[in-house]
């Protein structure tokens, strides 16, 4: 049996996992996979987080990817970082750089077993700030300068590839080289607020090809989180694990301790349990029905007849789910165009799943009492001629070209 087949059936512990420490964030990125912004009052306490770290140590989970939200805005972030490292749980944390001043950069440079990943979604302020918000480019660059000056060594620059930045891959590489960093590029998914920005931001089919060609030609020391395996159908398999690891070798612990199959699948359908329940994380990982199902034989549906199925394995579960495609159907970005064809075929009453949680900032101020009341007129045609409820069909897919609001 090949190693990868063991991965499909799941391991006794995850190879690594993503742990989002808080839903609080100083930014409101339009593609945030966890719809972060406001802290959840039910987030794990410092002691509960330490208990999770103890469990990860016992399970020999050698490293975690810590994110959020913006993890560094948790006041106990640095305490938890030190605690994890002292308990043989290496940490790579993702940050927008807001807290990485010269002092913190020096502290990190003096810490073993920690890796830092700065998020940047444009090689220029214009492209980056359009997605991540005003000033976020300067914040990220300043954090990079601080880490570089402090002699941190090779931190990571993490880029979500979008329609707007796919032409900037060489420039991202140049930025990484300038600061002695390593470039990491990952796939944009329609998760969280990414569902709302998907149509505007996901790379076009021509750009998928461009991205694949770039990875083959220039991608040797570029990390990808093995997230582009759906592009392998273009030709040769990309390096890394060409397999969906959800619930098999990876998972997500969210800020309130809920365990999901993967960071891009924050939805009740992919919720396996909670670390606060009896038996803790180990029991969720080893015994949850959901994970047992994900580790069992999967139906690839019509895709299994495709000659590229071995390469792409039907693509990303979360990308299908949050665009309304069946899990045994093609990926919405199937390089053969099967996803686009299936999306076009979806009926207007197809319910597109929404993320179960939304911690977005409430940024729109309330209208003043007595002032004008703006009304949004729906141009949606009723599902049925006799529908009179104005909310009928809300949240359902509209025919192409028709938008509400």
């Amino acid at each position, binding site marked *: 049996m090949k190693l990868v087949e*063991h991965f499909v059936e799941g391991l006794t512990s995850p190879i690594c996992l993503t742990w989002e420490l808080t839903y609080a964030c100083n930014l409101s990125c339009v593609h945030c996979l966890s719809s972060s912004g406001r802290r959840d009052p039910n987030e794990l306490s410092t002691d509960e987080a330490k208990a999770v770290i103890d469990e990860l140590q016992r399970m020999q989970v050698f*490293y975690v990817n810590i994110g959020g939200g913006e993890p560094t805005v948790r006041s106990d972030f640095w305490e938890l970082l030190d605690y994890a490292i002292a308990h043989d749980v*290496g940490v790579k944390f993702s940050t927008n750089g807001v807290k990485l001043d010269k002092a913190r950069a020096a502290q990190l440079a003096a810490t073993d077993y920690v890796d830092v990943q700065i998020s940047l979604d444009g090689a220029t302020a214009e492209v980056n700030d359009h997605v991540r918000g005003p000033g976020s480019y300067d914040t990220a660059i300043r954090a990079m300068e601080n880490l570089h000056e402090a002699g941190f060594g090779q931190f990571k620059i993490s880029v979500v590839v979008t329609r707007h930045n796919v032409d900037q891959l060489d420039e991202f590489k140049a930025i990484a080289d300038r600061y002695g960093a390593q470039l990491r590029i990952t796939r944009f998914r329609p998760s969280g607020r990414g569902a709302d920005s998907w149509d505007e931001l996901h790379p076009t089919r021509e750009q998928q090809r461009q991205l694949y060609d770039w990875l083959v030609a220039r991608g040797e020391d570029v990390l990808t989180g093995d997230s582009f395996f759906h592009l392998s159908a273009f030709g040769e398999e990309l390096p890394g694990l060409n397999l969906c690891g959800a619930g098999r070798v990876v998972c997500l612990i969210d800020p309130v301790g809920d365990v999901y199959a993967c960071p891009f699948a924050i939805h009740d359908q992919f919720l396996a349990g909670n670390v606060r329940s009896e038996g803790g994380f180990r029991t969720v990982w080893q015994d949850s029905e959901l994970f047992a199902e994900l580790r069992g034989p999967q139906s690839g549906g019509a895709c299994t007849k495709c000659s590229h199925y071995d390469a792409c394995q039907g693509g990303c579960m979360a990308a299908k789910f949050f665009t309304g495609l069946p899990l045994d159907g093609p990926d919405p970005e199937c390089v053969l165009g099967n996803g686009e064809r299936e999306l076009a075929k979806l009926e207007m009453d197809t319910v597109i799943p929404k993320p179960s949680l939304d911690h977005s900032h409430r940024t729109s101020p309330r209208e003043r009492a007595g002032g004008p009341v703006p009304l949004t007129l729906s141009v949606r045609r009723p599902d049925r001629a006799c529908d009179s409820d104005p909310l009928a069909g809300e949240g359902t897919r509209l025919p192409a070209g028709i938008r509400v609001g």
Partner: protein
Amino acid sequence: MPTTAAGAGPQGMHRGASPAGVDGFSPDVPYAISGSVSVRPETFGALVYDFHTRRLSFLKTRLLVRVVETLADHPDVHGALEAAEVPAHQREQYLKALAGLAKAGTIQLRRQGDTTP
């Protein structure tokens, strides 16, 4: 995160493995798992993580896991292979796998007088 697979057996991936005798690996001297390395047993063999290099590798058979874990108990690599009862016709493959692990720093030369970890 760099990964390597230390293969043993015909189905093994040999990425990164080098033949015995190359890169300074010698089966005639004592070896041991490096101090910064942790081994996690799995049904197929084990996951190996080096906290120093942050490199994750896979030991692809349980027998290889046994060999790696008992290297420190023997005066040379041959002794460990012998004690773990690695079949004679597989010895060469195991030496290749071990050479790969030595190159990656997963196992290292044990100085005379070092105690068993």
